[in-house]
């Protein structure tokens, strides 16, 4: 006859991943500058950002390949640095570079993987058969991994990583190098896994993939610059995004600011960019008011790219280019 309310007797679900103050440095270069985030069980959580922004470093830390220089990560309550063996049993890891042995067949790869996770005998055989069937690899089971296409290899990688039924699946840039069909396949699989209660954490530099995550963190310069669901992140952009191009973007932006002091237009890529609610009405007035100054107008719903631009002052791909040149 307990009078304790139900809400108090049920502890809040333990986070799948809980990171606090995670830093990582390669010598002098600080790659991660204090990350704090939580991933809830059963969600698809993405890290979106430019290459060189810290995604791969974070992935390596989460995969137990490198301990953070500072801060702590707990995976289902187990500390990554001190309880790595326990964490590893909960983790399925899909690397960006394939981890299949190309000289072995698909089935042999899965068998070795099972053995590494302590599986053997009939149990393992059953799991391999089921995994091959699930990922449409049954017919290719006896073929060497090197004969598989990129999409099939990624499927085999995922089949491999799921063999021990991990509760958390980590994927590093899983779509890179996949054609659109294989990419769709991949996401169908991720949604299915979410339905089965698997927590999925992935990194990506594709905006459209960020949109498919339940929640995501924008990672740039080793920091989380925004965190939330794609919808939440976009609502911080007031209304629509308007891009005006014309012969003199800088002059146009000056005149716009003089006329509408709260507009805060920015100039980049030879165009003026601004955010405005009910932009279609505004644009009609604007073009009339400034004859000859505007050659083309686009009005669009905000994207994650806009969020990224607003938070960092850079476009995602500009940062990647800068990083390549550095």
């Amino acid at each position, binding site marked *: 006859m307990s009078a304790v309310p139900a809400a108090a007797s049920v502890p809040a679900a333990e986070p799948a991943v809980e990171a606090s103050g995670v830093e990582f440095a390669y010598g002098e270069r600080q790659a991660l500058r204090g990350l704090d985030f939580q991933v809830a069980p059963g969600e698809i959580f993405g890290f979106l950002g430019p290459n060189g922004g810290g995604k791969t470093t974070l992935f390596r830390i989460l995969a137990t*390949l490198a301990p953070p220089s500072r801060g702590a990560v707990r995976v289902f309550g187990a500390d990554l640095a001190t309880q790595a063996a*326990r964490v590893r049993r909960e983790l399925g890891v899909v690397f960006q570079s394939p981890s299949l042995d190309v000289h072995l067949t698909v089935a042999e790869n899965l068998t070795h993987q099972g*053995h*590494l996770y302590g599986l053997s005998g009939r149990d393992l055989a059953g799991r391999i058969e089921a995994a091959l069937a699930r990922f449409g690899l049954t017919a290719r089971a006896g073929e060497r991994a090197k004969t598989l296409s990129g999409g099939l290899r990624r499927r085999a990688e995922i089949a*491999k990583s799921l063999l021990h039924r991990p509760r958390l699946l980590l994927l590093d840039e899983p779509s890179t190098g996949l054609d659109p069909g294989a990419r769709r396949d991949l996401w169908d699989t991720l949604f299915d896994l979410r339905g089965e209660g698997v927590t999925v954490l992935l990194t990506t530099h594709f905006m459209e993939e960020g949109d498919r995550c339940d929640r995501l963190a924008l990672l740039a310069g080793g920091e989380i610059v925004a965190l939330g669901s794609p919808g939440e992140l976009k609502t911080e952009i007031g209304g629509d995004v308007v891009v005006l191009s014309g012969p003199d973007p800088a002059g146009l932006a000056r005149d716009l600011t003089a006329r509408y002091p709260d507009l805060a237009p920015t100039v980049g890529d030879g165009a003026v960019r601004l955010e405005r609610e009910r932009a279609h009405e505004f644009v009609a007035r604007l073009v009339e008011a400034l004859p000859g100054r505007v050659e083309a107008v686009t009005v669009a719903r905000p994207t994650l790219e806009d969020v990224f631009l607003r938070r960092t002052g850079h476009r995602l791909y500009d940062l990647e280019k800068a990083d390549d040149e550095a």
Partner: protein
Amino acid sequence: MNGLATATLWQRELVRFFRQPSRVAGALGTPLIFWLFMGSGLSGSFRLQGSAGVSYLQFFFPGTIVLVLLFAAIFSTISVIEDRHEGFLQGVLVAPVGRGAIVAGKVLGGATLAWLQGAVFLVLAPLAGLHLTLASGLAAAGVLALLSIALTAIGFAFAWKLDSVQGFHGVMNVVLLPMWLLSGAFFPLAGAPLWLSLLMRVNPLTYGVAALNDLLLQPAAAARAASGLPSPGVAVLVTLGLALVVYAVDLAVTRGGRVE
């Protein structure tokens, strides 16, 4: 779980080897060519002190077997670097498997391959005019096993630390081949200038070669004393010690520092 992991990694080494015929050919062919050409070429001008009647082709045979082991160990430990580059290793490193199981699987896998190749040569010994009994053959196979583990473990330690196959070739040329050259495999200890014979005595590989020479060439005790070879017991003990020490070094390098 670690036993299963070791076994599966060991098995993978063997399967990969037999699926790459060029590796089989390279590992057996090179020493065979060395033995035939160098042995034949030097036969006319070479006479072993104190062991009249031993031709250079015969003298060089045990050393050639050690060269077979060395090449086999080098090739199989290069696969550590390949595993790292091809990505297989990272999959193993994130599995709930101790580093010790990884070392055991890789080193014992490589050593098994080296031993198998050495054993092929050992069986051919009578063709080189060497007398082999069942007892001496088995004893030689045992020495080969110790040497296989020692050489593979040496290769593993370098391969784990190195990023590139090119770098590994450097190590091979500067460390591993000179070790072999100065092991009494290519020329005998007796008759070498003092500084060289000192180097040869410090070289742990000398003792494994000596043990093998002892079994295959069977020099009489007097001849052994003249040739400066250590006694069989010392030779085997030093070889065993070498294998254990380098294996311990492997365990240490995989635990420390670099986690990639």
